[in-house]
């Protein structure tokens, strides 16, 4: 069978960190093998089925088969570890070819130059393990631009205080259609002297090759795209790689061990196939992009004589400094009966987007020390149209009691038909710290009998303080807009879909796992290209940066493989 040959490159995972490497190296003529633990869901497999998207474990593993362990502070202030099978607290994202990019909303934002130099710009923060990146924004800018073109990003560049330098004047795809509420946000914010910006999306607003433009289904995030407008790694990159004839993908292939040759070089990846059989493949270079938590887990599981603490982990850094996106959510309600009939209809219009972001507060003044500190981003969006999820959120009344009977039915009808909820999301840096890391659990095993990832999810209180400042700004805008029931919830609870770190890159081999090329300090043919490399995450979603960095590493690999 094909897998008997030795490949130029073996890529483990197929999401945002994997796709650009797969695409570029296949196009450059190298043989690329992709091992993806999840199945291959085709575009035709996707529908707007809430059962599959959110109610059952279809795009993610069953927690009984593949639990993880979350270590969180209990009421006594002690770290307490619980299996996700016990709690239902699911940290998995899209497990299939293309990974979670299939199900993202595609809110795309670049990091800014300051995000590469958090430590040297703002100084130490006690209890945080800040570090500057070993590369600058300028090193990544050409690859951000490449993502705009190849993956497809729609939007409109407008000058603003924190606009990052660009090599092109505007996005290659114009902005998507907007709901009338976007103009209301603009007006309210302007009245508060706050600038709003059109939010870029990794969604095509016009046809690109085999991919159709967005058809405004009203069910974007959490759902696979049926027009291929969404810039998933699967359709934007892996489909193109397959056209070269140089790319092979094995779905349902769970890699559990990376084998070295006794000379600090990787030679084989071992995996379970769909039937649970152990298989191995050989390659010249291995690229791991299994999403941050599982990437660290795989390295920690790959112990041998050379690496008794796990692959590339003789300095004990693998799994450390895991980060998420800090911040929280909030929102407010707009009642149709308070609006002119035409305005109410326009507000209720499904499908079209809000697409507004605010970056005026990317830098703040500390309320106590009055020193400059890093701030964050505010995005506005509608409440998701998922009806079951909406109903579930309305099960409890304002006093925390269960609604049922006639009051429940009356409330549901009112909630679904008389108002629309506008939400906001706050993104701030999740400061890396000693209480946020991945290790292997010594008790809980997955269905293959392997130790599962244990994830301690401690946050730094600074994240909350910054998040609350931004939430107040967002609430002021909602007040100005005339929203009702305005609320905000900033917390240290990590969003499971925005994870990075664990194998940070840096110039010092004692304090980092990877060098500036995302190559393991200790294993020269091991590269890591998911979000694991990030020592800090910026105050935006990570996906665009992960895509861009993977394109950057692909160029490095092309030089290396020559």
């Amino acid at each position, binding site marked *: 069978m094909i*897998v008997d040959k030795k490949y130029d490159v073996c890529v483990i995972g197929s999401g945002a960190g994997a796709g650009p490497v797969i695409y570029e190296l296949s196009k450059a003529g190298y043989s690329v093998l992709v091992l993806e633990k999840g199945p291959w869901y085709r575009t035709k497999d996707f529908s707007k089925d809430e059962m*599959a998207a959110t109610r059952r474990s279809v795009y993610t593993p069953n927690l009984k088969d593949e639990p993880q362990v979350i270590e969180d502070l209990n009421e006594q202030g002690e770290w307490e570890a619980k299996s996700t099978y016990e709690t239902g607290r699911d940290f998995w994202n899209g497990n299939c070819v293309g990974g979670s990019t299939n199900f993202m909303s595609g809110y795309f934002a670049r990091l800014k130059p300051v995000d590469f130099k958090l430590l040297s710009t703002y100084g130490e923060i006690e209890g945080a393990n800040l570090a500057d990146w070993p590369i600058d924004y300028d090193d990544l800018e050409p690859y951000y631009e490449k993502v705009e073109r190849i993956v497809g990003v729609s939007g409109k560049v407008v000058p603003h205080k924190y606009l990052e330098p660009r090599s092109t004047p505007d996005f290659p795809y114009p902005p998507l259609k907007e709901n009338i509420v976007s103009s209301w946000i603009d007006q309210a914010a302007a009245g508060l002297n706050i600038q709003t910006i059109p939010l870029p999306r990794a969604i095509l607003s016009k046809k690109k090759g085999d991919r159709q433009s967005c058809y405004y289904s009203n069910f974007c995030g959490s*759902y696979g795209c049926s027009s291929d407008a969404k810039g998933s790694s699967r359709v934007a990159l892996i489909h193109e790689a397959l056209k070269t*004839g140089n790319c092979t993908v094995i779905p349902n292939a769970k890699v559990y061990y990376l084998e070295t040759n006794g000379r600090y070089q990787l030679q084989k990846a071992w995996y379970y196939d769909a039937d649970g059989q152990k298989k191995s493949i050989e390659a010249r270079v291995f690229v791991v992009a299994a999403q941050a938590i599982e990437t660290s887990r795989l390295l920690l599981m790959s112990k041998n004589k050379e690496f008794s603490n796990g692959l590339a982990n003789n300095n004990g850094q693998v799994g450390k400094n895991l980060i998420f996106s800090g911040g929280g959510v909030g929102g407010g309600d707009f009642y149709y009966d308070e609006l002119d009939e035409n305005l109410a209809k326009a507000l209720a219009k499904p499908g079209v987007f809000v697409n507004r972001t605010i970056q005026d507060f990317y830098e703040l003044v500390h309320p106590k020390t009055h020193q400059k500190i890093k701030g964050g981003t505010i995005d506005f969006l509608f409440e998701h149209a998922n*009806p*079951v999820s909406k109903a579930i959120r309305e099960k409890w009344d304002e006093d925390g009691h*269960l609604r049922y009977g006639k009051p429940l039915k009356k409330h*549901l009808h009112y909630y679904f038909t008389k108002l629309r909820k506008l939400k906001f999301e706050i993104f701030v840096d999740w400061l890396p710290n000693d209480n946020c890391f991945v290790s292997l659990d010594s008790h809980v095993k997955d269905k293959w009998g392997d130790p599962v990832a244990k994830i301690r999810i401690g946050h730094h209180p600074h994240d909350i303080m910054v998040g609350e400042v931004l939430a107040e700004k967002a609430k002021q805008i909602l007040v100005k807009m005339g929203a009702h029931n305005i609320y905000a919830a900033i917390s240290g609870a990590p969003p499971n879909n925005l994870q990075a770190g664990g194998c940070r890159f840096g110039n010092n081999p004692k304090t980092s796992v990877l060098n500036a090329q995302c190559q393991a300090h200790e294993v020269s043919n091991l590269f890591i290209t998911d979000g694991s490399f990030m020592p800090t995450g910026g105050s935006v979603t990570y996906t665009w940066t992960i895509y861009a960095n993977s394109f950057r590493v692909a160029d490095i690999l092309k030089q290396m493989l020559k």
Partner: protein
Amino acid sequence: MKVKPANRRNFIKALGATAFLLQFPFWQACQNTNNLDKTSPSLQQAILSGVLNILFPTFDKTPDIRQINAVYHINRYLTDPLIDPDEQQFIINGTKWLNESAHENFKTDFLQLSAKKQQKLIQIISHESWGESWLSKLLTLTFEALLLDPVYDININECGWKWLQHLPGRPRPDQPNIYPDILDRKKENIIITGLEQL
């Protein structure tokens, strides 16, 4: 907003050890256990229907439990091999605990109570830890029957969507891409080398 107990399995286990002696298929479970258990499968079904009608009553031409096929949906949930068995058992055990509560509060079976006393009992258990959790789970499954796609033989004639003026997204789910059939993709032992294979 309240959330479910942090550790649902321990929570469920802590509620009543005798009830968790059951290791048998769901509605049949009680026929095979000890003398403490007086509720038969048909009784459990009747109790469940009674509770659902209190949680989601018929009035003003709103969709009712029968129209959304809620009992069918819950039965399918209880026999789905991919659902956590402890979650399934919890639903069964709730019918028995409700009956026990009926005896504790009113000295008779739940189904023998007047409508008013049944309502009162539901109110009582909604303030107890197990009861709140059990009713919450039943409501979640009711919402699924009300608002998931009719391809699952629920939300009949889109009655739930029409009532709440919900517009479904397209494409709508259809065979073979509905749950659980779509999960067959996870069993594919394949090697893809070209788009034509997809």
